[in-house]
Every structure is written in C-alpha cells, then in structure tokens.
C-alpha cells in the first residue's frame, strides 16, 4: 500500500479518534454536567443578559422553532443588505463592487442555510467586511442553528413524557462558545502557521517565473477556512475554494481541513450515545453511516485511479491516471477522499475541479448529497437520518406485528405525515427544479435574458445534464459544492437556487423537531421483549435499506440520464 492511501486512512482514523472524546464532551456540555470550559459561564451569562434572553426557560417545540426562524430571518435581511451595499462599507482594499440584488439574494440565503453555493468569486465578489462579518459570521450561526435544532431532538429522545425540550438559545449559544469557536481558533492558528494568509492588506503583486505580473488576492483567510470546515459550511475565501494553495498550503493543512469537516458530524452521533447513555445505538448509527460513506468512497477511488478512456482514445498514454482537475500535490486518492467527504457532509468545499472528475465520481457525489445523511451537516445530518429512522421503525414495527414505537413513543399517523413530507421534499426540489431548468433550456434557449439559457452549460449532453442536476442537488442538500461548467450567476439560477435553499434548509429542520416534540408528549412505553430494538445490527441494516431504496427509487432515472449514461458511453 502506498503513502497516498496511508495518508487518507490515517486522516480518517484520527477523525474518529478525535470524535469520541469530543462527542463525550459535547454530551456533557448539553446535559449541564461539569466540563473544563465552565469558566465561560460568566461570558455566556453576559451574552444572555445583553440580549435579554432567559436561557433557563423551558420551551416547547413550537417556541423553539419560532426562536430559530425569527433569528434566522433577521440575519437574512442583514446579510442581504450588507452584500448589496458592501462597496460603501469599510474593509474593501480591492474596491470590489456591491452585489446585484439577485446575487445578494442567493448569497445571503446560501450562507444562512449552511449551503454556501457561491455564484460569485471570493476575490472579486465580496469585501473583507462581508467575508468576515457576513459570511464568516453566518458560518458560525448556521452551524450552531443546526446543532441547536438537533439538541431539541436529543432532548426529546431522552425524556419520557414532556412538553418542553430545553431552551433553544442555550443550545445555540453553547454550541458556539463551547466548541465551534474554540475549535475554529485552533484550526485557524494551525492554518496560519502553515502559510494561509492572515492579513488585512489588499492584493499583492508578484512577478511569475514567466515574467508576467500577477495579482494575488489575500485577506484574513485562515479564520474563515477554519470555520468553513468545522461548521460543514464549505464557502471558501477564494473562488477556487481549497483547491487554491493559499487555502490549503500543505498535506498537514489537508489533514486538518479534512478532519475539521468530518469531526463534528461524527462527534455529534457519539454525543447522542453518551447523552442518552445508549452507546450501542450510537455505534449502530455510526456504523450505518460509515458503511454508506465507504459505498460511495470506494467506487470513487476505483473510478479515479483507472485512467480516462476519453484521454486514452486521443492517443495519449495516460498510464492509468486521470490527473485533470486533481489536487496534484496530494494525489488521486486524497482528492477522491475529499470529494466523497465533502459531499457526504454538507461541507461542499473542494480541493479539485468536480467538473473534471470521472462520471462515476460525479454519480457518487450526487448520491452522497441525495442521501444527505451519511454523517451529514452539523446537526442536520442526524436530523435527516432521524427521518429515515422513523420510516424504518414504522415499516419494521409492522413487520414484527406491533404498533411501531421509537425510544418508548408510538409512531402514528401524524408523525408519518411529517416524515413523509420531509422525505418527499428532497427529491421533489431536486427533480422539479432540474426539470424546470431543462424545460427552459429546451424550449426557450434564445429568450431575451441578459444571460441566455443556451449559454448556461459549458458541456453538452449527459455531462451538461449532470451539471444542472448537481447544482440543484447541492442546493437541496445544503452542500454548496458546484460541478463548475454551469454559469449560475444570472437571475434564473440565483433565484431558483435561493428558493430551493430556503425550503430544503428549514423544512427538514422543522419536520424532525416537530416529530420529536409531538412524540415526546406521548405516553412513555417501557421496553418489553416484544419491542423492536433499534440498537441492533438488524435494525441498522433495515435503516440502510430504507435510505438506499428511497434514494435509489427517487433518483434512478435522473442518475441514469446524467452520470451513468456518460459512464456507460465511455466504456
């Protein structure tokens, strides 16, 4: 085995090793046990006092969601106007212009919802002020929103029969002060010391070896790259994201960034085990997620390391490698590993060019985002998985001849209605908006828009279809990665993506929280020998089967017409 593989195995191993103690620590923070970070208590109390919040007041699930939606709407307005008027605001050494309203609409929503689709390029589309105080600020806020919402569900799973499930503000503030902020500071310091720029100076001018003059963008990059990974956000400082060597200077920063984007989603599942004192349950979930991740990673590595028949057909001996679009410094497996992890989590950062990957890789990336719960984003990954658990519990409960129940609470019509809507929404948004873009492209290619639909796609055929499918899948999964090749900074894409983003963020949060809230109010049923245990391998297999079947059934034709048609035609 060569060092390229050892590198990613060590990176993954370190992630798990870090996730276990972190999970234990997070469980302690939220169950109010003593931790070494309790010295922050006065600081948090000051925040609550300044904001006039009573963080000890127990809230029911409706109050929680109201708090969550209110504060998110305020940030949306703030971000939208700050981006439009950024040219009038300070910290703009490169004199970048304000964003157009449709771009600002897209960008504000995109960062608010933890997606970070970027229809602009960081070097020219935003200023240092908006990078730091809008985009990086939302990196923290969106991650904490997801974690706080997830904590409401954890609380619901732990309680026997309650109407209130903790306090949203408490969960929200503590996820920032207790691990997002300290973790981001740590990662930022490592990045800064390895060469990631940390300066407020404007562009630098260098003379390249070809004696050309080049402008190099700079800024306080390290801080943003740290939280972009830790909060599974993915919106980078530069247009080319972490493929820009200044965002990821060497293999150490590669490992740190990889660990950072994976560690919190995994730690949150471990924390569920510690919090509920049901470690087996957590291990089974981690197991299912890991198997799912490997089912995507292995074909990706396989596809990328076996050359490109299209290049070979041109008479170029590619020696079984397809280096186009790869992170050439770290090699193919490292690039493949990044592409899988960034799509299974909702990070969406990139260290290569997704448009250049093999069609099988594109298929795997799409599937990762279509499933969107093999680890998933901060908090929301578990919430998506929770919906699948509810469906799996329901079907398997019936299969063993008992009214389905989960964690001592019956799963009935109302929960199934919400779970069905939540599970339905993802394919609905992806398929219907991809269909809409196809419809516009086919029927109105020459419509009198500033940017005509016929010019959207950089590639024709199956690949072009994949690009459009990828764009909406990435939005619906709140992932934020883009295949490239598609020119998305125009009114059609900015607006439609914004709509997809808003729905696909908040309904999958509202749904699971509502289910957890309703179920927690029900009568508690103690476990009996007839109860279907949810912490067994059998149930894990059942959940995996439900996830695969639902994703496969909903997306089979779309995947067949995009990446798989391309894959088979390259054979």
């Amino acid at each position: 085995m060569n060092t390229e593989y050892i590198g990613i195995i060590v990176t993954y191993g370190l992630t798990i090793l870090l996730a276990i103690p972190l999970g234990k620590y997070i469980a302690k923070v939220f169950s109010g046990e003593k931790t070494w970070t309790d010295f922050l208590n006065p600081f948090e109390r000051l925040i609550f006092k300044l904001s006039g919040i009573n963080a000890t007041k127990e809230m029911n699930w409706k109050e929680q969601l109201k708090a969550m939606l209110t504060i998110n709407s305020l940030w949306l307005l703030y971000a939208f106007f700050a981006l439009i008027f950024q040219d009038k605001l300070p910290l703009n050494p490169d004199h970048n212009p304000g964003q157009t309203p449709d771009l600002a609409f897209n960008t504000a929503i995109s960062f608010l919802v933890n997606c970070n689709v970027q229809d602009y390029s960081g070097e020219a589309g935003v200023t240092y002020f908006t990078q730091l105080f809008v985009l990086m600020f939302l990196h923290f806020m969106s991650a904490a929103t997801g974690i706080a919402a997830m904590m409401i569900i954890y609380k619901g799973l732990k309680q026997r029969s309650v109407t209130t499930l903790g306090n949203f503000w408490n969960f929200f503030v503590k996820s920032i002060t207790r691990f997002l902020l300290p973790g981001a500071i740590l990662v930022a310091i490592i990045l800064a010391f390895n060469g990631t720029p940390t300066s407020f100076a404007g562009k630098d001018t260098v003379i390249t070896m070809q004696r050309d003059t080049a402008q190099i963008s700079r800024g306080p990059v390290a801080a943003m790259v740290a939280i972009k990974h830790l909060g599974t956000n993915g919106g980078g400082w530069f247009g080319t994201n972490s493929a820009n060597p200044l965002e990821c200077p060497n293999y150490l920063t590669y490992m740190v960034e990889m660990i950072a984007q994976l560690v919190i989603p995994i730690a949150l599942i471990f924390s569920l085990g510690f919090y509920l004192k049901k470690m087996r349950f957590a291990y089974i979930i981690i197991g299912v997620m890991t198997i799912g991740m490997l089912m995507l990673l292995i074909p990706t590595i396989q596809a990328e390391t076996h050359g490109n028949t299209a290049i070979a057909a041109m008479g170029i001996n590619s020696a079984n490698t397809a280096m186009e679009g790869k992170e050439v410094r770290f090699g193919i497996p490292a690039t493949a590993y990044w592409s899988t992890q960034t799509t299974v989590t909702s990070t969406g950062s990139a260290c290569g060019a997704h448009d250049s990957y093999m069609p099988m890789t594109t298929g795997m990336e799409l599937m990762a985002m279509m499933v969107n719960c093999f680890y998933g984003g901060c908090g929301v990954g578990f919430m998506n998985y929770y919906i699948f658990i509810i469906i799996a519990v329901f079907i398997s409960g019936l299969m063993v001849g008992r009214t389905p129940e989960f964690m001592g609470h019956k799963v009935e019509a109302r929960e199934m209605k919400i779970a069905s809507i939540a599970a339905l929404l993802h394919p609905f948004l992806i398929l219907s908006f991809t269909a809409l873009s196809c419809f516009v492209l086919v029927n109105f290619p020459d419509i009198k828009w500033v940017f005509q639909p016929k010019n959207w796609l950089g590639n024709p055929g199956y690949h072009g279809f994949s690009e459009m499918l990828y764009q909406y899948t990435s939005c619906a999964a709140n992932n934020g990665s883009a295949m490239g090749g598609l020119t998305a900074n125009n009114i059609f894409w900015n607006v439609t993506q914004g709509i997809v983003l808003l729905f696909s963020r908040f309904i999958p949060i509202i749904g699971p929280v509502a289910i957890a809230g309703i179920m927690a109010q029900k009568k508690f049923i103690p476990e009996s020998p007839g109860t279907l245990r949810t912490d067994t391998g059998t149930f894990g297999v059942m959940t995996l089967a439900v996830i695969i079947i639902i994703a496969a059934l909903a997306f089979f034709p779309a995947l067949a017409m995009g990446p798989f048609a391309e894959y088979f035609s390259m054979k």
Partner: protein
Amino acid sequence: MAKRQRKNSLFQGDLVSEALKYSFVKLNPRLLIRNPVMFTVEIGTIVMAAVCWAIIFKHDTSQGSLAYNLAVTLILFATVLFANFAEALAEARGKAQANSLRKTREETPAKKIVPVGEMYVDEVQIVNSSELKKGDVFLCEAGDTIPMDGEIIEGLATIDESAITGESAPVIRESGGDKSSVTGGTKVLSDKIKVKITAEPGESFLDKMIALVEGASRQKTPNEIALTILLAGFTLVFIIVCVTLKPFGDYSLTPITIAAFVSLFVCLIPTTIGGLLSAIGIAGMDRALRANVITKSGKAVETAGDIDVLLLDKTGTITIGNRKATNFYPTKGVDDFIFIQNCLVSSLADETPEGKSIIELAREKGAAPPDNFDLHKATLIKFTAETRSSGVNLPGGKQIRKGAFDAIKKIAMEAGNSFPSDTEEKVKQISSNGGTPLVVAEDKKILGVIELQDIIKPGIHERFERLRKMGVKTVMVTGDNPLTAKFIAEKAGVDDFIAEAKPEDKMNYIKKEQAEGKLVAMMGDGTNDAPALAQADVGVAMNSGTQAAKEAGNMVDLDNDPTKLIEIVEIGKQLLMTRGTLTTFSIANDVAKYFAIVPALFILTIPSLSVLNIMHLKSGESAILSAVIFNAIIIPLLIPLALKGVKYRPIGASALLRRNLLVYGLGGIIIPFIGIKLIDMLLALFMK
C-alpha cells in the same frame, strides 16, 4: 368438541362470483378514492383509454401501435379489478361467516309478556321476533328458540348454544348471577325463563360486527391510516419522478410515449400493498370471527397485537376446573385401607367437586363402604364457614369429620387428643407443594390427611412460553392464598400472580400497569368484572357473561374459552405483520421494474444505457408490458397470503425482523426479476 365447520377453502365458488360482481361495482371513483394508490391507477387507465381512442379515431401515430396501447390499457384495468377483487373477496368471506351466525336469528315467534298497568302479569302475546324492542320482556319454555339477545330476569334454564359455539353440551343460564345472558338463536332445553331485551334490533354485537366486515362502517385503524399516508407519500414521489421525466427526456431528445409514462408510474407506486391493504384489514376481523370472537372495532384486534400484559383467571384457564384429590396419607399406625374407606364414607354425602373427586380416587384405589353401611341412616354434616369441616355421623355413634387443618386440630385438641407429628409434617409438605391438605378425624382422633391438588392444563406451560417470547407478560388471578398461588404460578409458568384477588384488585393491577405505559388485556364474565373490562385496553367478555360485562369489553368470545386471548393476540400481530411485509415486498419490487423500464425508455436515444437491461428483455415494448403484467398478476397471487395472514413466529422481534426482511425484502427484490423475465419470454412468442 363439535366446532362449527370452519371453511378453509379461500376461493369458494359462490363467494368468488359475488366478489367478481363487486370488483366492478367498486370501480366507482367515489368508492375508490378511499384508496389513493388504486385511484391513481384508475386515472392512468382512463388516460390510456383516451390514448387508444385517439389512435383509433384521430389516427395518431406518435404513441405506438394500437395493439400495444390497448394491451397496456387492459392490463391497467385488470390491476384495478384485481385489487377490487381482493377487497371484495375478503368482504364476501367475512359476510358469509357473519351470515352463518345471523342465520341463527331468523324470524322466530316470541312469547312477549305484555305489561298491564303497573304490574307485569303473565299475559303472553305471540309476536314476531322482529317486533321486539329494547326493554321488552319475553318468555321462553323448554323447546323454544330464544328470539333475541337478552338478560334473564327470572328463572333458570338449560340451553343448547351449539348454534353459536358449536359446543353440543348444554349450559345452564340463570338470573342474577354472572351467567345471565342468553343469545338469540339458541334453544331452551328445559325449564322456563323470563328474558329482558338489552339491545335495539340491529344494534347487537353481531350486527355491529357484520357492519364492520361489510365495510360500510369500517373505520380505518390508526396504523392503517399511518400506512396509507406513507404509501401516499411514495405515490407522490413517483408522480414527481414521472412528471420530471418529460423535460429530462426532452433535454436528451428522447420521445417518451404516454403508455411508457403511465406504465412506469403504475409499476412504481406501491400497487401491491395498496390493492391488498383493505383486504388485509377485513381478513383480520374475519379471522377473529372464525375464532368465534366478535370484535366491536377493527382497532381492538390491532391493539390485541400490542398487548404487554395478559390477566388470566386461574380456574378454567390455567387449571382444569376445581381441585382434585390426588393422595391419601394415613397417620402412622392407621391402616391404609381403613383410612381410605373412612375418607370415602365421609364424602358420600359431599356434593362439592372436591368431595366427588375424593370418592373417585378412593374407588380407584379399590375402597368400598363397609358392608353394613346404609347412607340413609347416617346424619350428614354439611360444611359451614364457622366449622370449616364436614362429615357424617353414623348410626353407631361414630363421627367422621374432614376439614381444614386448624379446624380439625381444634376438634382433636378439645377432646384431649394430640395431633400426630408425622401428619402435621405431611400437612406442611402438601401446602408448600401448592396443594390443599384436608385432615380426616374419626371420633376426634386424627386418621390422616387427604391431598387436594390443582390440575394444570396440559400444554399450558408451552403456551405461556410462547407468549413470553412474544413479549407478553402473563398474570394469574386467583382467590387462593399467596403460597398456593405462587406454587401454581411457578408450575404453570406465568410471570406474576394476584392472590386472594378481589374484583378491585384486578382493576388496580390494570391501572398500575397502564400507568407504566403498558397495554393490558383481560377476560371476564361477571358484572363485577365490568369496570376492569372497561379499563383494560382489550377486554374480552364471555358470551355467557352478564350484559354489563359484554357492554364493558371490546370483544365478546362466543366460545366462553378463557384461553382465547392468546389466539386474539396472535391474530392482532398477524394483521400488522401482513401489512408490514407486503409493504416491504411491494416497494422492493420497484428495483426490478426500474431495470426493466428505464433502459426500455432510452433504448434508441441513449443506447449505452442498455447495459442496465440486465434481464435482456426482448424489446422496449415487451419490457414495459412484462413489467405491468407482473405488477398486475402479483396482486391476485398474493390474495391467499393477504387473507390468511403472514404466520407469526414467537422468535423475538429482531429475529422476526431479520426473517421477514430476508423473505419479503430480499425476496421482493429477486422475485420480480425472475417474474418479469419469464413473462418477457412468454410475450416473445407472440410478438414478432
């Protein structure tokens, strides 16, 4: 036992023809909309019929040949009919079962007692049973058929209930007690009773049950509603998949025919479970009815499947009838034969079941009364609560007494006789073995002790073991003292017991378990059981029980069989399992259908996708036809499973899930691959 003949054949000629008729009646969209999955298939059929019409009259050639489109239309139509047939057949079977019960209550003349003034006088009017109303009182004498359900208000009678229960032995029903209910259609064999009608005509339990089976008043149960929602969710997903396929096809310059769209859609939506869902529910109640249990709602049957705790009366359920003599233990120095003879003599006048069993056992051991013994000259001493003993005084002055240990001991001690230590030892031993010791004394001198034992029903231990594996806790309710109760509980294998039980103890136990979130089932017959029956989640009243008990429970057992609860629990579990497994099967089927239809859609425009045609189906049209044909015929093929139910195995929830997942999940993925391929091979013979 001469049980009423249980019809085992699923497809009886007369029922099938009736079901066929109703399959067409049910095509009415207003009826079909209750089933969203099949409703969409009906819409698909109408769309396809319109396509055929366009081909015939407008000579539209863009949609393929008429034969192909007509074939798709007919197969879709058959799919709806098959689903309707499944439901109609389940209804017909339920109705037939109910009718055989209803037959027992055809028009019979009734001797109605007409009240005159304030008093009921015996003025009897012969009226038709249909003219009787709630509150009316009628008279029944030997040979009369009881015209309607009611409660005996005066008298006692032996009644032949074989029309209802299939049990040929007559039973005794009398006013006042817990066995005061009579059922319409049963026959009075002796004596005379006055009966008051307790339910309006058409509102008796049986009428309610028939209405439930006929579907008119059948309410969907909570589980069924939740499942329908999930299935509607899947249907919506596939609507989206099929609608979006049109612009996708336009992008890749692939023309997709309406027949292909409709076929893909119908194949993907869960038609198998959607078509069989209501049949499964009706069949569940029908199975209950076949077990001679009348349920007041479909929900009660399902709840039975969730039961955590089962309250069972000891007598009749766990043990056979009453205690029986099993052994004679004479005191040291007393002759074995003499002792047994004395026991026999002391019991000759004893009418209690215990007394009779002593005589039986003594005769078995070869004992007979002494030659000069004349029962008529002996004075019988009856058992009283004060003396707690009984016996005889013989003409020669000899007194034989038998009774409880302390009662006889007192008699002996007062006479100055000691209590032999070996017998005292024996008494203790019998008690700790769960038996009842009966001490025998002759002229206030201890002769020995008789051991009485409860006889535990054979096979009951295994049944409780089965229940335990299902996750059901069994609780024995008995009037015995805690020591005896504990012994029997252990021997029978129940998990818990309530000793020296009073009616309110049952109630308290149920409330305690329910407070912990458990579901409790119980069976009862007496009026004092009524509150507990009402409190229990599943209360099964015996048909012989009082009206109050029957009103309070949510099921009535016509057989009066206390072990019936076990059967009911399994019926409930079977019902849910059949739904779950067929849902899994139905959804797993979609994988193969995708592999059949998707390559067929793009056979010309994306030839590389023919790699996905792993079944090597002959042509695009034959692939689509094979998939819809498979989709249609799987429904009638699964009707037997839907009606009989998936067999429940008490092997633990996880093992059961593993098993069903393997059989219906994996099987559901593999079977359609084989089925579609076979149909395609068959079609290839006709399509050249």
